[in-house]
């Protein structure tokens, strides 16, 4: 029960504590302590040093401990910089939002951990919906019109999407009619072991509902719009949290149903749906990168692109599947750096419009260089990890039964890279004629330190390629019944 206490109960207590204690600094210290304990235990569980005993509806397998570590990592860095972020001046109305910031973050950690550790579809659903509820008020942090609209759209679209996922879960029950699973609980493992006996029609219907429903949260096209609005209008740490971990929580739900469907005759069907959704996401990112004029929306579209790429790898299988799991790690780290540095730019320029951002390298040299490096990281430039994971995904596609897909993927990614590059380089280098360059030297803030550390981490994981990560990923592929 110690594991359960640290992963779920403690963040809940933390949320309650933050409700009682109004001092922001104490809230921060408590939340950081919880985050440290969470990442420490996640790491011990991941390394196999500690075997957590969890109550009914929760268990740990290779997939959940993999995703849990990604969540812990992203959450830790986000909490670490949150206090310095909150000290930045905001409009008077937004001061009110600070009061609930750490409370909601702790609640997010509890619900997201519950979703990742659940081994029951019902529990997963409840926890995944709770993550939406914890994030939605955080999107409205700035208390402006755009944030309000984004919060409403996110809350509404994701709630309807999650309701669809619930229909999928009910259809899964229906697929078990007449089998030994009838009347039993919706435990993942029971379904995975008896997948061959499930009714294929209902299983396919269940997959479609769960995939489409959770796509609103993952950001898979064409259900991505709420997610884009939310990510681009939320404060940077929250956007980082959403891009780095929340989308993966929803992806986990899709992976669970995909795991069930894999040994059945419906596998090809599910594969096609995932691949089509993934390609559509890449296409959407490709198209919108041409017209986007808000750099945070650009980063949100980049998330759509990368989640599309991860989904594509999962759908294709084999080496691409391994690449997709590596990509999940690297993307989560790179997105934190991108959003945090973009947050610095937003704080300095008070605008998200690309046209209003000029000479970042002169005005904010540290942030500017880090922003440039994180752009190179997310674009798959070596030695950053994404280069290696993308190579694996490409290789997987090339040696699959659909090698021609690689041409589309490369085409889309090339133009995304060119357009993103154009926007970012304009922001960094373009000089404004009217500008009177009387700039104060940029202070070296904690966010910059975190960004440097994360970029180093991104490189070290890729270059050192720790055996433990590889072994865990291989175990996941085995759980999915893949022979490599």
């Amino acid at each position: 029960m110690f594991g359960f206490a640290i992963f779920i109960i403690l963040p809940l207590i933390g949320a309650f504590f933050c409700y009682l204690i109004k001092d922001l600094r104490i809230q921060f210290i408590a939340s950081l302590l919880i985050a440290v304990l969470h990442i420490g235990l996640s790491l011990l569980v991941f390394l196999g040093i500690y075997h957590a005993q969890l109550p009914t509806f929760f268990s740990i397998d290779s997939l959940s401990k993999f995703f849990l570590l990604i969540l812990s990592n992203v959450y830790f860095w986000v909490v670490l910089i949150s206090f310095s972020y909150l000290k930045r001046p905001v409009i008077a109305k937004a001061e009110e939002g600070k009061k609930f910031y750490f409370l909601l973050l702790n609640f997010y950690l509890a619900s997201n951990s519950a979703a990742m550790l659940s081994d029951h579809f019902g529990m997963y659903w409840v926890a995944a919906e709770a993550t939406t509820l914890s994030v939605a008020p955080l999107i409205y942090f700035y208390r402006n019109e755009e944030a309000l609209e984004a919060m409403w759209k996110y809350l509404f679209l994701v709630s309807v999407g999650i309701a669809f996922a619930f229909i999928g879960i009910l259809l899964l029950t229906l697929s078990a009619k007449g089998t030994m699973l009838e009347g039993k609980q919706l435990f993942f493992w029971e379904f995975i072991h008896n997948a061959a006996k499930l009714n294929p029609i209902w299983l396919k219907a269940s997959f479609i509902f769960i995939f489409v429903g959770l796509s609103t949260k993952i950001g898979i096209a064409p259900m991505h719009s709420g997610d884009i609005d939310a990510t681009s209008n939320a404060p940077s740490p929250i956007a980082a949290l959403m891009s780095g971990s929340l989308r993966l929580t929803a992806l986990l739900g899709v992976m669970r149903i995909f795991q069930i469907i894999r040994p059945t005759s419906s596998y090809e069907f599910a594969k096609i749906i995932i691949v089509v959704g993934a390609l559509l996401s890449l296409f959407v990112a490709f198209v919108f990168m041409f017209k986007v004029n808000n750099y945070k929306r650009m980063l949100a579209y980049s998330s759509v692109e990368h989640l599309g790429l991860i989904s594509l790898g999962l759908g294709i299988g084999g080496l691409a599947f391994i690449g997709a799991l590596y990509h999940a790690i690297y993307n989560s780290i790179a997105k934190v750096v991108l959003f945090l540095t973009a947050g610095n730019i937003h704080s300095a320029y008070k605008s998200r419009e690309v046209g209003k951002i000029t000479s970042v390298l002169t005005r904010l040299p540290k942030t500017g260089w880090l922003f440039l490096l994180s752009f190179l990281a997310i674009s798959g430039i070596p030695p950053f990890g994404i280069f290696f994971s993308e190579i694996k995904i490409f290789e997987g596609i090339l040696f699959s039964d659909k090698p021609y897909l690689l041409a589309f993927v490369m085409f889309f990614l090339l133009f995304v890279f060119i357009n993103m590059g154009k926007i970012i380089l304009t922001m960094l280098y373009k000089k404004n004629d009217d500008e009177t360059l009387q700039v104060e030297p940029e202070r070296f803030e904690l966010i910059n330190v975190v960004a440097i550390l994360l970029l180093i981490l991104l490189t070290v994981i890729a270059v050192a390629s720790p055996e433990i990560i590889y072994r865990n990923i291989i175990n996941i592929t085995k759980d999915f019944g893949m022979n490599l």
Partner: protein
Amino acid sequence: MGNVLSILFCLSLFYVSVTSRVKAYVAVLRIQGVILSVLMLIPFLYNFSIFGIILPATLILVKVFLIPRYINKVIIDLDIKRRIEPTIQQMTFLPLVIASVIVIFLVSNILSQYTEMDVIPFASGFSAIVIGIYIIMFRKKLIVHVCGFLILENGIFLFGTAVASELPMMIELGTLLDVFVVVFLMGIALNRISSTLEGFEVTHLGRLKD
């Protein structure tokens, strides 16, 4: 008994398709809450247990009292006008609803030949899901969208009873709590929208685009 209640539930969907008053939507939500609660209480006529009554009791509390009251409060506080402001004519909406319900019932009947299930609750539940989506699509007022979402949720609940999914009580309570909090947050957001954006129709939400 289950079939009779499901048909009543289905009739409430027709009512909601023809009415043009916002308050009628809330009344329908209340009626649907009662129907679902009675449906949950039927098994207790034969096999009573104190522990098992918690879920139907919570269902009544949340779906019949708390949520409708809260929505009514939002309507009064924001002084939302009575009309629902449809985007299509009522005389187009009703045939659309009827045609959808007929198709759903026919398809459910065909599907029931392959899988054992209660056709009437199944089809009624699914009809509510589809009509909930229609309401969200074809109405302008955001409060009516919330009602559409709740009708969709009620449909899922009925649908769940039709496929005889037995979720543990803790999880059922969790789903109810989640739905309640969603509605609560939507209420708060609506309040802010009415004061910040000076309106509560979907047309007021057009700032975020590329």
